[in-house]
């Protein structure tokens, strides 16, 4: 009649399914914790491993780019801007929708999807979010 009850009692004694990213509970002092992590004193539980084809923050090999603007033409979000002076491009990650279409179209393969995805910020134009 209430099949969930027995299921719950079973699950209660089982190990939780949770991936403890970044720590089990909220640390008392986040900034100290993050500093400790940088200094190697504390450990961060890693996020679920992203797979091989993961579409994260774009990597751009600027030297290889020939300024053909194909990527700009196909980008559905207009996340790519052409820098006239350098004949290169600039990608705004805050606009990008991670479709990787620019990767496919680039004739010289200078764009790749990286694996970085922890991009949260309070400044949407910060350095980390602009790829040149």
């Amino acid at each position, binding site marked *: 009649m209430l099949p969930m009850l027995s299921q*719950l009692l079973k699950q209660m004694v089982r190990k*939780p399914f949770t991936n403890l990213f970044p720590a089990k509970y909220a640390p008392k002092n986040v900034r100290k914790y993050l500093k400790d992590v940088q200094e190697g004193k504390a450990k961060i539980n890693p996020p679920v491993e992203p797979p091989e084809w993961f579409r994260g923050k774009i990597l751009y090999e600027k030297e290889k780019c020939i300024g053909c603007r194909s990527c700009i033409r196909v980008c559905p979000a207009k996340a790519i801007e052409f820098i006239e002076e350098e004949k290169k491009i600039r990608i705004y990650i805050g606009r990008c929708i991670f479709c990787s279409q620019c990767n496919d179209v680039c004739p010289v393969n200078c764009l790749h999807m990286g694996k970085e995805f922890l991009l949260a910020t309070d400044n949407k134009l910060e350095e980390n979010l602009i790829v040149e």
Partner: protein
Amino acid sequence: MLGELLFKTVIASIGITIFAVIFGLLFKGIDRKLVARMQMRVGPPIRQPFLDVIKLMSKETIVPENAVGWMYNLAPIICLASSIILLLYIPIGNFEPLLGGHGDIILVIYIFLIPALAMVAGGFASGSPFATVGAQREMITMMSYEFPLAVVIIAIVWKLSNIGGDIFSLQFISSHPIWEEVGLLGLIGGIILLLALVIVTPGEVAKIPFDVAEAETEIAHGLLVEYSGRNLALFYIADAVKMFAMASLVVALFFPYNLSDFIKLDEIVAYIADFLFFLFKVFLVMLFSISLVRAGMARLRITQVVSVYWITITLIALFGLVLLMWDNQYSIKWW
């Protein structure tokens, strides 16, 4: 004498308030943790309710412009105060209830209504349609569970009246566990009554499947929809205290046994052991009648709440009562 009395009252009320808030929130934390573990999650730390309360206290307290200000602000205070007062009447471990005395069992039933009423008043006072729907639902729920609850309590009292004494006091009831006064039929009756009370419990503390008044997905927290900051914190604590008190009441009515009744212990040790044992009993009651039930069921509709309580549970409880009554005539001892 008056001075002493006053002094005692003040100390007692401060003491009981601190006790109620701490243990209420602690058990709420345990409840949340338990439910989280049942759902394969890690869940919040056990101290989370304390954090929630501290946070809410520091937040802005908005009074919506359609609300009746004084009532809107008064409701949470009354709600919390009456929840705390409950604990003055309920025996805790080996400690006698601070206020107890004649008639407190009925008093407790009524005091249980007051937090709910305060919430209803608060809901009406907030002047939002969702709060109004919530308040109406709360009233209906209240009327529904009160019936079986009354049956259970009266049945116990009626049974105990055979032995005489101050039967309308909780202290008396908990020092004369019903199980010792009944024969086989009465034992079954007692178990049935316990079952009814266990089902009344989630209704009394407004938890799934009877939390229609606050149904989040339906009416966005209903009654509480307009509350914020300090007021919300008071309701939050009141909810926790009420949950603790209700579980304690179940313990007092049906499982009043103390450890020291079975094992010989020193006085102080006995008090401590009994208290811990009491907490353990409360924990068990909460696990089965609140945590497990709220995790394991879907919310009912208000009409279903009414029919479950008025028909199903009341019939069950009445059946228990009838068994207890027969028990006198066809007494078969079970021990």
